């Protein structure tokens, strides 16, 4: 099966300290991978490297089989992925504007933008908040907006950092179910970083354990 995202010997150093150390990772289309590990293990940094917003100190990344170069084509590589950080990071605007942001940056046809945004607002149960300003919604609602914004891009691979940190109860179960359904339907790859063991097992087919920037082991979740 074709790999939608892969990395070889990926390292990232800050002031001589290795935050991520020679990591090899491969994500096939439709595959769900979860990264777990203690605080400071380098999980979020690894996700930022894979999301192409940090430049590795060494190593190579491939998106859809194409080697990423950090020059002129970087934006087009980034546009094939969607990264959701631990913080919601919404812009100053309405909920609708936030979900539409990535599509507008791609200069997508406004009718297509409307269709996609409305679809994902509906699926995340936040359609009634569409006109509300991003400052006027709760943390859990903002989380859904951040996730809807990434989903609306319908990327080849979705990278989520602690996606359910501020969502609980039924909402968490609903979003998780939606997410897994979406991955199955679109065949996109999914990488999730989490602290929660149950979440890790529910979200991933494969679990990677990390510590001190290195990959400890890889396991498969029994079904």
């Amino acid at each position, binding site marked *: 099966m074709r790999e939608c995202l892969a990395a070889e010997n990926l390292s990232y150093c800050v002031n001589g300290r290795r935050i991520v150390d020679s990591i090899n990772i491969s994500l096939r289309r439709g595959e769900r991978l979860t990264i777990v590990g203690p605080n400071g293990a380098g999980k979020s940094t690894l996700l930022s490297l894979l999301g192409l917003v940090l430049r590795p100190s060494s190593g190579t990344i491939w998106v859809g089989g194409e080697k990423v170069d950090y020059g002129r084509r970087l934006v087009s590589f*980034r546009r094939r992925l969607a*990264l959701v950080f631990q913080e919601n990071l919404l812009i100053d605007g309405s909920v609708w504007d936030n979900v539409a942001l990535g599509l507008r940056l791609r200069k997508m046809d406004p009718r297509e933008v409307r269709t996609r945004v409305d679809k994902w607002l509906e699926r995340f149960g936040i359609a009634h908040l569409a006109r509300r300003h991003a400052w006027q919604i709760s943390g859990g609602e903002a989380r859904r907006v951040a996730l809807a*914004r990434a989903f609306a891009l319908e990327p080849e691979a979705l990278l989520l950092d602690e996606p359910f940190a501020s969502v609980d109860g039924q909402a968490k179960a609903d979003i998780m179910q939606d997410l897994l359904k979406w991955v199955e339907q679109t065949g996109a790859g999914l990488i999730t970083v989490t602290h929660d063991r149950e979440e890790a097992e529910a979200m991933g087919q494969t679990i990677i354990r990390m510590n001190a920037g290195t990959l400890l082991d890889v396991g498969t979740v029994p079904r």
Partner: protein
Amino acid sequence: MNLIWRGIAGACRLLWVMDPEILRITALTGKVSGTATFLALIVGVPVGAYLGLYDFPGRKLLVSVINAAMGLPPVVVGLWVSIFLWRNGPLGFLGLMFTPAAMIIAQFIIAAPVVAGVTLAGIQQINPKLIMQLQSLGATRSQLMWLALRESRLSLLAALMAGFGAAVSEVGASMMVGGNILGYSRVLTTAISMEVSRGEFEMAMALSFVLLALSYSASYVLTSIQQRRSFHARVSGR
């Protein structure tokens, strides 16, 4: 004390009758400082935003130059603009010396680093993760710059106020390159300076009231916009 009261009374009389000379000087001040601030925004905002968003060799040096230039002495600017625009100077052929255009150039040089510096500070206050998020959403360089400026627009208003304040309040450079010619290149600051040297305190005070009113009303409008937004942000708990 008597001098002050006499000055205030005379100034009020001149303002009440809307002295044509005062009106002309005020209009030219608005035109020169307004144009200089506008040009400073066009150059200073993108420079400040680029320095705030991207790292490149020589960035630190450039930032330190801008920070130093924020306190550039106007007379030094006046001296160098004069050297360049003087009849035998490198740009003497343009014939701009002792014209309002020369004053605009001098005020632009004073205001642009202020605008760039305040913009840079505003951009650097944005959560770096938000910048990364915008990049990951597929923003190109120009889109990222636009979005970052949009996110820091309260600081942009501060940059506009600081730039206009620097331009409208300087006197040394305008005096040197504009020549303070009556009806042609006389602005409020140069006129005040001249009236004081002549002992015409009534006129000087009247002009100072106009300058303060001009500066304050521009600040008031911008502050109102800025504070409305920042209050909105505070009450909604952003």
